[in-house]
């Protein structure tokens, strides 16, 4: 399939990509125009999405047609937030906010610890009897990494020159090595994204790459 420079979709994509890349030279009006256009477009899309996915189905379908009147409570709570724009009555907006904070705290307490137990007992591993010597070594490394990284996050019992201090210092190195590996893999992913954009510009749009 040959390239089509004047295809509206390709042309729009290419102009927008190049406009965004101009930021690499310096901040400029072309970049600003497309940046603000992007923000505006997303904002309009969000309003449409929210209306069609949440507001309309809840009010028209759930409340009016199906008679699920309990849904009126969250609708009213949501509307109370708008009192923040009325200076003399903005205290009313604190009630839905309090509800949200309470809900958030409860949600964290109920669902976040769910992964704690498996994380603990999955660290109980044998250091021997695995398929190869490297697998055994890996198990030992995993154990050392977990306990030393945990020691790094002790805020009160850490003392220099003690076993906990040594473990915490080792943990710091373990964390840095892990983050270095994560950095490498993410940079690689970002380069892949950049290559994708270049393939679009030079292949799909200009047809230089086959």
């Amino acid at each position, binding site marked *: 399939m040959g390239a089509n420079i004047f295809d509206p979709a390709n042309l729009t994509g290419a102009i927008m990509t190049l406009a965004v890349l101009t930021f690499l030279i310096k901040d400029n009006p072309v970049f600003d125009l497309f*940046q603000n256009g992007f923000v505006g477009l997303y904002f309009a899309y969000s309003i449409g999405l929210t209306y069609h996915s949440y507001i309309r189905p809840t009010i028209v379908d759930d409340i009016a047609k199906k008679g699920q009147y309990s849904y009126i409570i969250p609708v009213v709570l949501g509307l109370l937030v708008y009192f923040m724009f009325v200076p003399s009555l903005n205290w009313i907006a604190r009630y839905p906010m309090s509800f949200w904070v309470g809900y958030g705290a409860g949600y964290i307490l109920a669902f976040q610890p769910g992964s704690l137990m498996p994380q603990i007992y999955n660290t109980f591993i044998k250091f021997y009897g695995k398929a190869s010597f490297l697998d055994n070594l890996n198990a030992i490394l995993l154990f050392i990494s977990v306990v030393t990284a945990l020691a790094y996050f002790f805020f009160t019992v850490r003392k220099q020159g003690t076993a906990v201090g040594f473990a915490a210092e080792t943990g710091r190195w373990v964390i840095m090595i892990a983050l270095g590996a994560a950095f490498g893999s993410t940079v690689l992913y970002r380069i892949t994204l950049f290559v994708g954009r270049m393939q679009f510009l030079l292949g799909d749009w200009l047809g230089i790459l086959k």
Partner: protein
Amino acid sequence: MLLAAEAAKPYLGVFAEGKFAQFVLMLVFAFIVWFMVTRAKAGMKVPEIRKINGLEALDEAIGRATEMGRPVHFTPGLGGVGNPMTFAAFGFLGYVAKLCAKYDTRLIQTNADYVVLAINEEIIRQAYLEAGRPDAFNSDDVQFMSDQQFAYAANVMNMFQKDKPAANIMMGAFWAESLIFAETASFVGAIQIAGTAATAQLPFFITACDYTLIGEEIYAASAYLSKEPVLYGSLVGQDWAKIFVFALILVGTVIANFQAKGNWLTSILKK
């Protein structure tokens, strides 16, 4: 019928599979924290918290912005109220806002979540009130940018270019927008303090920011900054809870290596 027959029987008639041990552990942690908070309230000695460089630098960053006559920017990231990192950011924001009010430095606070926006506005308003400067609070500086990740990032980039903050503080839950923020703030010469428990974003903060709080350190921030005995006691309690987990891992690993078959501690923790 088949599903009903296969469903696991609740442990002790109440607990879903794997939840009993979790419940007991939560009670143990709650007791430890309560005990330490009670000690702190009673004025008994509580251990010192080790130095956290990122938090020590906060006064310096806001002071620098004051001297340069440029604003401070604070973002809690993309997390909502169901995210513990956002809760950590709330405590941090209160301290930052109070310092900004004290030094009469403009604080620009951007948001990607409308509920978090409303809460942050109240936190900042309260901080200005406590600092004795309610008149200096400007609600226009607490901004909702967009709930879409990259539209939010583009808007924050735009703000960096136009307002050129001298200090950029990023505390909370971040995803791929983290490097966009950090790079642009670095581009305009802002001193940067970041903190998150999102492990995928930490490497970017470490490379692009001046100070980075790693994981658990962001949860210690409120206690560390406020120096309030009750929060201090709670932090000490959390530390002891971590020591408890540390001990569990050591014991469990010893059992795994010496018990011929299975691991009785794992069986208990799976209840």
